[in-house]
């Protein structure tokens, strides 16, 4: 089974610029998550999709962050304009749903964003 694919692996941008991250989940996984992991902290959920609908975006800074999941498969996360405090690793994860699948996810390797 192929893993969760993310790109790019690294990105350096100047503040006020825009950036986009891409995630391809494991085939058949209905739920997709974007997490932000600031250095020295645990990942924090930004947004959760169930198929192509948003389940939870309560922690997403909607004035600058946006995300979409077209056709319930791939997803993109965008930041516009970026701030210095957005420097972090952005992790994508996917999971199956339904009875019996209440265990863990599969994570991608993340995108390390540096805003200068």
């Amino acid at each position, binding site marked *: 089974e192929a893993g969760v694919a993310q790109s790019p692996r690294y990105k350096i941008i100047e503040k006020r610029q825009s950036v986009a991250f891409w995630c391809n989940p494991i085939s058949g996984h*209905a*739920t997709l*998550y974007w997490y932000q992991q600031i250095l*020295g*902290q*645990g*990942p*924090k*959920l930004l947004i*959760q999709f*169930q198929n192509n609908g948003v*389940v*939870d975006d309560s922690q997403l800074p909607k004035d600058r962050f946006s995300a979409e999941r077209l056709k319930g498969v791939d997803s993109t996360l965008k930041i516009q304009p970026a701030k210095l405090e957005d420097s972090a*690793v952005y*992790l994508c*994860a996917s*999971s199956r*749903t*339904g*009875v*019996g*699948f*209440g*265990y*863990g*996810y599969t*994570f*991608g*390797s*993340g995108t*390390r964003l540096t805003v200068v």
Partner: protein
Amino acid sequence: AQTVTQSQPEMSVQEAETVTLSCTYDTSESDYYLFWYKQPPSRQMILVIRQEAYKQQNATENRFSVNFQKAAKSFSLKISDSQLGDAAMYFCAYRSGASYTGANSKLTFGKGITLSVRP
């Protein structure tokens, strides 16, 4: 809201020795899952072990085992026969068991602990 606390920022263990990583959590739910994830420098979160709250028996996966104390809301990870490849960040995480349809299925993580292994 659920919270997960890992109060030890760093730990070190001698190769082949045993180390225990601590985690406490707070929740009002009775049905939930707890996890330990390993994050090496490659950044990919790797599931180490999971525990269902309704199971009294502590989970074990080869050299990894947990001490799950539900009443005390404590979930520690024991690594036996530590190996150099165990060096990484370890995160304790909580997931609600309230829904299997996706809602409330997010993971809540602690701040993590950096484990180093001395040769």
